[in-house]
C-alpha cells in the first residue's frame, strides 16, 4: 500500500512499489490527462509536478512519490484557467493535443522557478518535450504570453 497526495487529495493505492507512477495515475486513479509517450523519460508526455518539480512519471517508481505532493494537469488549476492554459487557447497551440498536458506541466514548473524568463530560458526549459505535430512555434509564444501575464 502506497500513500499518495495527488491534487490535494490523500489516496492509498495497492500496487507493487516499483510500478511507475504514470500507470498508477492513469489506471488505478483513472486520471487520464497524464500521457504515456515513450516509457523511458524521453518525450515528456507524462510530466507532472512532484513537490513542484517537473517529473517524468513513466520512470518514477510509485514508492518514490510516497509522501510527496503530486500535481497533475487535472489539478493545475481547478477551473482549468491557469495562465498557461489560457495562453495555450489564446495561441491555439494544440494540434492532436496528446503531448500538451506534459508541455503545460513542464512550463508551469519552469515559470514557478523563473518569473522573468528570456526567450532562451523558455527554449531551454521546453526543449525536452516532444510535440510530434510540431506545434513548437506556438508553444514558445504561449509560454511567453503566460510569463508576461503572470508577471503583470
Amino acid at each position: 500500500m502506497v500513500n499518495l497526495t495527488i491534487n490535494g487529495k490523500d489516496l492509498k493505492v495497492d500496487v507493487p512499489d516499483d510500478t511507475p507512477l504514470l500507470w498508477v495515475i492513469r489506471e488505478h486513479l483513472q486520471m487520464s490527462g497524464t500521457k504515456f509517450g515513450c516509457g523511458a523519460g524521453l518525450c515528456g508526455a507524462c510530466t507532472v509536478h512532484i513537490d513542484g518539480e517537473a517529473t517524468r512519471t513513466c520512470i518514477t517508481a510509485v514508492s518514490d512519490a510516497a509522501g510527496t505532493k503530486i500535481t497533475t494537469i487535472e489539478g493545475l488549476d481547478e477551473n482549468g484557467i491557469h495562465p498557461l492554459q489560457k495562453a495555450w487557447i489564446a495561441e491555439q497551440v494544440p494540434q492532436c493535443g496528446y503531448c500538451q498536458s506534459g508541455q503545460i506541466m513542464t512550463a508551469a514548473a519552469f515559470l514557478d522557478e523563473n518569473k522573468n524568463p528570456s526567450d532562451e530560458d523558455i527554449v531551454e526549459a521546453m526543449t525536452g518535450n516532444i510535440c510530434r505535430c510540431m506545434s513548437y512555434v506556438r508553444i514558445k509564444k504561449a509560454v511567453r504570453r503566460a510569463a508576461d501575464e503572470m508577471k503583470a
Partner: protein
Amino acid sequence: MAKFGLTRRKFLVAGALVGGGLAIGYGFKSDKPDNAALSASTSEGEIALNAWIKIDSKGVVTVAIPRSEMGQGIYTALAMLVAEELDADFETIKVEQAPIDDVYANVSILQDALPFSDKFHDGEDTIGATGMAKVAGLLGVQVTGGSTSVRDAWGPMRQAGATARSMLVMAAARTWNVSPDECTVEKGVISHLKTNQSGNFGDFVVKAASETVPLSDTLKKPDDFEIIGKSKNRLDIPEKVTGKAVFGIDIALPDMAFAAVKLSPVFGGKLSSHDEKTVLEMPGVLKVVPFETGVAVVADSFWRAKTAVEKISATFDSGEAASTSSDQVIKTLTDNLSSDDARIYAEVGDAPSVLSSAPNKVTASYTVPYLAHACLEPMNCTAKVTETGVEVWMPNQAPTLIKWFAEKIADVPAENVKVHTTLLGGGFGRRAEIDLVLMAVTIAKSLKNRPIKLVWTRENDMQHDMYRPAAVSEFQASLGADGKIEAWKNRIVSQSVSGSFTARLIPWATMDAPDNTTSEGAADIPYEFSNRLVDHVPVKFPIPVGFWRSVGHSYNGFFTESFMDEAAFAANQDPVEFRLAHLGEHRDFATILQKAKEISNWSSPLPAGKGRGIALHESFGSIVAQVAEVSVSEDKTVTVDKVFCVIDCGTVVNPDTVIAQMEGGIIFGLSATLFGEITIENGQVVNENFPDYDMVRLANSPVIETVLAPSGRRLGGVGEPGTPPIAPAVTNAIFAATGDRIRELPITKSGYSA
C-alpha cells in the same frame, strides 16, 4: 446478416450495374430527410434534419463529423461549413464523431487516386472523376487521409447546412403564415421583420423535420461568407489543455483488462514457440494469447501485462526478411536505376534521344531512407467480443476498414459490429492501418465478454510501423542555348505504398498495378519542358511501407526541387528566376513563387556562413513555396533560422488552422531532413525509442512566417502540402551557404549535424 436477400451494399452495386448509373447527390436521395445515420444518437428533444445536423429544442446545433480529428482541426473546419450555410451561431455549435455510414464515404480520396493523365486535377469534371465518385459512394469507405477532408465535405456539408436552413425557414413561415422568402436567419434565430416575429431553431425543428427537403438549394457566394475564411478558435482545444480530451489510449470500461505484446522482431516472422508457464504465475496475469506474429499477455493492468510479456521466452521463424538490411535496400534501389522494367508516368516529346546528343547535360541522383510515423500516442485498440457481436474503440483514420476487419476476426454479423473513433494522438497515415484491430479483436475473442485494451510500447511502434519507403531518384537534363531545360529525364525507384497497403488488406490479391503515389510530385510538376520522361521502377522488399504525411511527395519534392536548383546553378541563373522561366502557362505557380521571393527578401545579401534556398511544390491540390534561411558553422552544424511559406489552397476555410498546418508540416518535414532515418539490419529495425529516431525540438525549431494566398482555384488540402518543400528548401540553402550539394537525407549522412 441479410440471409434472404442482397445486403444493402450489394443491392446498391447491383442497382448501379442494372441501371447503368446511380445518383449520389450528397446523401439527399429523396425529398424526405435522410437522417438514418444519426437516428440512433439523438438525445431527448433533439432532431436530426439530415446525416450531418442535429438540433435540440433549445436550438443547440450539433454537427456530426465523419472524419477523424488528429490535430488538423477538422472538427472545427467542417462545423464551419455547416454553420455558414445554416446561418447558425458558431459560438454555441457542438460537434460529435459521426457513426459509420455509406453517406459519409470519402469520394475525394479515390478521385485523387486517379491516373495523373486525367484532367480532373486541372479542374475539369472528367468521366474518370465522375466514375470514381460513384465507386467511392458504392464502397462507402470513410477514411481520413490525403488531405481530403475539407475538399470532400465542401459540397455535401454546406449543402446539408443550406437544406436544413430551408426546412427550418419553411417551418417558421408556416407557423407565422408568412412567405418564407421574407424570413431572415442570423446566428440561429429566424425572423420575420414585417410582423416582428422571431424564434430560434429549436422552436421550429420539430416542424422542420416534416418539411420537404429542397433537392437543390442555392449556396452562398464566397463574397457573402461570414464564417468561412475567418479564423475560428478550434472547438477541440479547450479540453486539450485541461487533460480532459479522450484519446483511444484513455478509454476506460468496466471490467476492462490490459494487453501487451511481444512481436516477431523480424518483419513477416511467425511465432513458432512460447513458454507461458512462468508468466501465468505472475500477479495479475489473466491469460497468454499466442497469435500468428507474436504473443500477448492479458493482465489486470498494463504495467503488469508489459512486465510479463517481456519475460516470455518466444521463438520466431524469421522467414525471408531475415537477410534484409537498409544498406542492401538502398543498393538494390540504386542498381535498379538501370532496370529495363520501368513504368512511365509522364512522357512529352523524346527526352532520351535529345539527351543522347545533348552537349550540355546536368545529372544527379538522390537517396532517402525509411521513416517512421512515431505518433506520440502509442498505437492502441480496445475491443470487446461477445457471442454475437464486437465493439471497438480506437483512434483510427479508416473506421470502415476497422469495422470490416473487426467483423471478420470476431466472425459476427455485420450489424453487430460497432466502432467508436476517438480523438487521435497523431495519425500522419499510420492510423489508416488495420494491424492493431486485428490483434486487439483476436485477443478479445479469447476473453469473451471482457473488454481488453491493447497498448503498444514505443518500441513496438518504432519497430513495427508501416514505413515511408526508402527511395532513390536519378535525373538527367540538357540545357539549351537559351539557358532553359530542353529535356528532362527522371527515374524513381522504390517500393509501392499502395501495393504494400493493399496486400495487407487483401493478402490473396497479387498487386502489381500502377501506383501514382510512387511518382506524385515528380510526374506532375508544373515546369514545362519540350521533352520529359518520368518513370518509376517498383521493387519489392519484405519491409511494410505505408502512407506517411505527403506520401510520394515527401521524397519527390526533395528530388525534383533539388535537381531544379542544380540545373539553375549549371545554367548560371538565380534559382527563382530559373524556375519562373519554366513555369510557362502555370501562372498560379508563378504568383506563389513571386510572393515567396518578395516576403523572404530573396535578393538581399546575407553574411558569410548563411544561405537561402527555395522550393516550389504542389501536392494534394495546394501550391506551396518555401524559402529557408540557414546558418552553417565551420564544424558543419546547421541551424535553420527562418522559413517563409506561401500557400495557395484555393479557398481558405479556417485561416489560423491553415497556418498551424503549415508550421506543423514544415517542422515535420524538417525533422526528416535533419534527423529522420529508420535503419534495418537482419530484417529488424535497429531504432527503439526517441533518441534513436530523433526529431526537431523547440531548440531547433525555426521561426516560421506563413502567408495565405488563396486564388479561388479548385480547393486544395492543407494537412500535407506544407511538408514536401522544406527538405529541398533547406538543402538548397545549405548549398547557397557552402557550395556543398546534399543529395542524401538526412543531412547527417553528409557529415552535417543540427
